Every structure is written in structure tokens, then in C-alpha cells.
């Protein structure tokens, strides 16, 4: 039997109780990561954490990422080193999706709080741990960030802001890698909220993106920093600088 001693990498995934966050947590668990998972619903989060089969530790902390106290607890739980921070938790806003002309401004503020302010605040709180580990921050975005699709204005604007923050962080931070990922349409609770009453099961399950995440996790962070990827695109590519074929 061959075995090599490895220090387990550590990841924090927000919105980890279902959908993409849960699928990604499952992959990271199987790959041997220690996990800190968070989501608002305590019952669903506990169930999700209990279903993970990897050998690493799993810490499930229910709470809202917009709550500074919760962020402090997450940061404390993470400890000294963080290899991967996935900003996956998102708010879609009102369902059915409202036109901007009619949207309730309190709902706009709430979406921006969850999708823009909270990820920045969590990144700030975890920056020392990320810097010590040479970690990677993933901002989960959407094609709505660029789309201008009717009804998607609030969510899309929040994701556009998240993406610009991620690009800026990539330029500002030394030794921490920041990438943006558009996972593509998936059959998730959030996608169902965007299309209430419609059958969305022609969309793939979140697990369809696992090959992409497996690829991403294997890349050198200096090659990824500042880049944007589409998980369901027909290629995931990096620029080649040298003449090696």
C-alpha cells in the first residue's frame, strides 16, 4: 500500500446546503478537503453536511452571510489557513422576476447586501487566512451579469458588481487568486424561483459542472488569477505564453 501524508486543504463554501454549493462541497469532501460550510437553513445544512463522505473535517455553521457576527464565527472556525473561498450564496430577489420600473427598492438593497457587500466583507475577514495559504477566491456569477435580460436587472446588476469587485481584487491582491465562474443554467431552487411554475428539468443538474470544478482545482493559481470561466462552455482554456507545444 502506498500512501503519502498530505496536509488537508481547507475550503469555505457559502450557500452549501443545496444546488451548486452542495455539489461542490461533495466534490471537495471526496477530494479530501476540510470544509467549513454555511447556509441560512440549519436543518438543510446539517443534512447536507451529514451526507458528505470524505475523510476531512466538516464544520456546518448555519447563518446569514450578511450578518457580521456570523461572518466573524465563520472566520474563527476557518482558523489560520484557507485554500479556497467560494462565494456561492446568492439572492435572486423577488419572484417572479420584476421589471426594474416596478421593483421594490428595499428588495434591491437586500439583493446587493447578499450578493455584493457580504462576499466582499467575508473576503476581507478571511484575507489573512487566504494570504497565509496562497488561497483562491471564487465568485460564482451568472451570464445575467452581462445580459440585460428583462426581469434579471437586479440580480444581474448585483452579479456585475460582484464580478468587477472580483477583477479588482485580483489586480489588488498579491498572493491570493481571484476568479469568476459562470456555472450556466442548472436545475436548482434558485433557477426555479426565476421561472415559477415552469418545468426547468431540461436544465442539467448542478453535478454537470463537476468536470469543470475538477479541472479548475488542478490549475496553478497564478494561471487563473483574474480570469472568468464558464463551467458549461465547450472549453476551459488558459493563454499559453511560451512556445512549448
Amino acid at each position, binding site marked *: 500500500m*502506498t500512501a503519502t501524508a498530505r496536509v488537508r486543504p481547507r475550503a469555505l463554501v457559502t450557500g452549501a446546503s443545496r444546488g451548486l454549493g452542495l455539489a461542490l462541497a461533495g466534490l471537495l469532501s471526496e477530494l479530501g478537503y476540510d470544509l467549513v460550510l454555511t447556509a441560512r437553513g440549519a436543518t438543510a445544512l446539517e443534512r447536507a453536511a451529514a451526507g458528505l463522505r470524505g475523510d476531512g473535517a466538516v464544520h456546518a455553521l448555519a447563518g446569514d452571510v450578511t450578518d457580521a457576527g456570523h461572518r466573524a464565527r465563520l472566520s474563527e472556525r476557518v482558523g489560520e489557513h484557507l485554500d479556497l473561498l467560494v462565494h456561492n450564496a446568492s439572492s435572486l430577489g423577488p419572484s417572479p422576476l420584476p421589471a426594474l420600473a416596478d421593483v421594490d427598492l428595499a428588495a434591491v438593497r437586500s439583493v446587493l447586501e447578499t450578493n455584493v457587500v457580504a462576499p466582499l466583507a467575508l473576503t476581507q475577514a478571511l484575507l489573512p487566512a487566504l494570504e497565509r495559504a496562497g488561497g483562491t477566491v471564487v465568485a460564482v456569477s451568472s451570464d445575467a451579469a452581462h445580459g440585460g435580460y428583462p426581469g434579471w436587472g437586479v440580480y444581474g446588476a448585483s452579479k456585475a458588481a460582484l464580478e468587477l469587485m472580483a477583477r479588482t481584487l485580483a489586480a489588488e491582491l498579491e498572493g491570493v487568486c481571484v476568479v469568476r465562474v459562470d456555472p450556466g443554467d442548472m436545475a436548482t431552487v434558485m433557477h426555479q424561483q426565476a421561472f415559477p411554475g415552469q418545468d426547468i428539468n431540461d436544465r442539467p443538474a448542478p453535478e454537470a459542472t463537476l468536470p469543470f470544478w475538477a479541472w479548475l482545482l488542478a490549475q496553478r493559481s497564478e494561471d487563473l488569477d483574474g480570469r472568468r470561466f464558464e463551467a458549461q462552455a465547450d472549453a476551459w482554456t488558459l493563454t499559453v505564453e511560451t512556445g512549448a507545444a
Partner: protein
Amino acid sequence: MSGTTPGVGSGVARAVAPPATLPAELRGTDRDAVRLLVTDPHRHRHLCFRDLPQVLAPGDLLVVNDSATLPASVPAEGPVGRFRVSLSTRYGPLLWVAEPRRSHAEPGPLPLAAGAIATVGHRHRVRVRFVAPHPGLPRLWFVAAEAPLEPVMTADGEPIRYAYLERPQPLEAYQSIFARVPGSAEMPSAARPFTHATLAALRARGVGVSALTLHTGVSSLELEPRQAERTGLYAEPFEVGTATAERIDATQRAGGRVIAVGTTVVRALETAFERGRVRPMRGFTRRFVRPGAVRGAVDGLLTGFHEPRSTHLALLTALAGESLVRDAYQQARARPYLWHEFGDVHLWLPAREPEAAQ
């Protein structure tokens, strides 16, 4: 360019062609003595592979795949007894996509569940964990290893082989003269007939050769075109270097033709073709080259004769058009040409003559 893939598929799927059951050099001839069918929009020519340089023109460029074949089939033991694992694609030092099989000849399926633990190798053993089935391809699994699997392949691996072979062949039989970067689960076989003599004759003719890398996964899997259109093909690692990208661009600008050696090269170049030319690029591609989804990175293709799998036919149809593909398969069946990785080869040329030539 016309038509849809299913129409072609239904026509040629009935084709039964003899597989090459041994490499050419064990059939009493040389690698470069296999036959060559040359198809262009005007005619089919029945030649020998050694005629290749004369069929091409000065200023043409052959683009080859320099991926070397791995001894990717390794023995395994786990909750389902003794079985084999075909290592298909390396995602990271300790993460692979792999196909568990009952044996070389029997695919299974094996009743493995996520979280299953197995040991691969005899002389060099490594514990692996079946992490999750590959989405859309449930016979393939993400497999996490406790230690690198390359030493297992070196100690105990064999080339993946299928039932039509007369007897197992050594790994060397699965390497082309261009093989340089280990990583393919199965031989990129279109380049197999090339010899040093071929290269000398191409050089004398003024035909260039450039390389890229695409590591093939196991070929036993097949996606329906409808699924492939939605999800893309199975993702494979590739790299197009700066020198190759520049040579391709220079060739096309000078009026020469870019001839892909193997469908792997077509997929890599079509992926790397952006804003009017091939760009240096690396990553994973699952691009499905099909009618209506061609960027124009290649002018021609040298390929083997394979089972008329639907995605392979879609690629040929995208490059050559439906009626020409149907004609060519009739020609190949009538002769017949030998199929599979040790068989004959087929050159598809475009209508246009090279502008830089003569």
C-alpha cells in the same frame, strides 16, 4: 456542406468493414505501407500511404498530435472483486477520470457506488476512491488516488485493447513517431503510418509538420449527437503552442492548406481558433465539431477508418459534406479498407488547390 448527421449515420452505420487485427509491421509489411484513400470533392483515389507527399503540395502544413499513449489499463481489486480500470483523463496529480471494466473485453457495468474504495496495481499498489460518476457518462468515474498513478501504470499497466485484436500488442505498437508527451488513454492513431522515410519525403516536397498535444480519453464511450450538442463531448486536455499557432497562421495566409492528422487535431484547432486564426492556448476541450459549428481552422484531415460513430461522422460531415461522406464510406466498404487503430488511413482534401504551390 449540407444535411444533418443522423441521415449520414443511418446510411453508413450498416457498413461492416474488417478490422485490422494486427499492426501493419506484423502483417508482413511496414507502417507506411498501409493503404491511403484520398477523397476530394471531385474523386476518390486509392493509393498507398507512401504516396502522401505527392498528394500534398509545397506550402501545405500537416499538424500532428504528439501525445503518447499510456499503459492506461491497470488491474484493480475492490468491493466487486478483481476488475480493471482504464485511466482515461488526468485532471490533477491525484485525480483521474477512469472507466472500471470487468476485463479488457467485458465493459461491465460494475456495481460500484460513490465512496467505494479499491486498490489498483499488483507490484505497485495505490488505494483509490470512486468519487462520483462523470455527468452524462455514468460508466466513467472521477477517481481520487492516495498517491500518483503513473508508477502503477509503469509497473502493471497495459495498453487498452479491444476484442478484435488477434493478440495483445506492446505499448510501442501504440506510439506514433510523433509521440512525445505521455497522456493518451488510447493511441491518436491517424499518425501511426508515419515513418522517418515519410518525414524525409515530406520535407523534400516542401510540406511542413507542426505538433500540438491532445490527450485522448477512452474511446469506448459514445455520446448521442443530441446530448453532445447540449453538453459537448467528453473533456480532453490539449495544448497548442505559440510556434504551432504562428506556423498555421502563416501557412493559411500564404495560401497553403492546413491538414489535421487525426480528429483530435481538428478538435484542438477548432477550439483554439478565435478571431480569425488559431491562438496559442491550453486547457480542456469538449468542443463538438459538427455541421453548422465549424470555425474553419483546418482545410483537410487525415484520419483512420473507424466504426461510424455518430460524433465522428458529424465531424467528417462538417468538414466534407454529407454526400461526399456517404460516397467515401461506400468506397471504403467496397475495397475494403482495414479499420481501427492498426488499419488503413483516409485523407480528406478540400476543393481548393493550394494557392502557394507550384
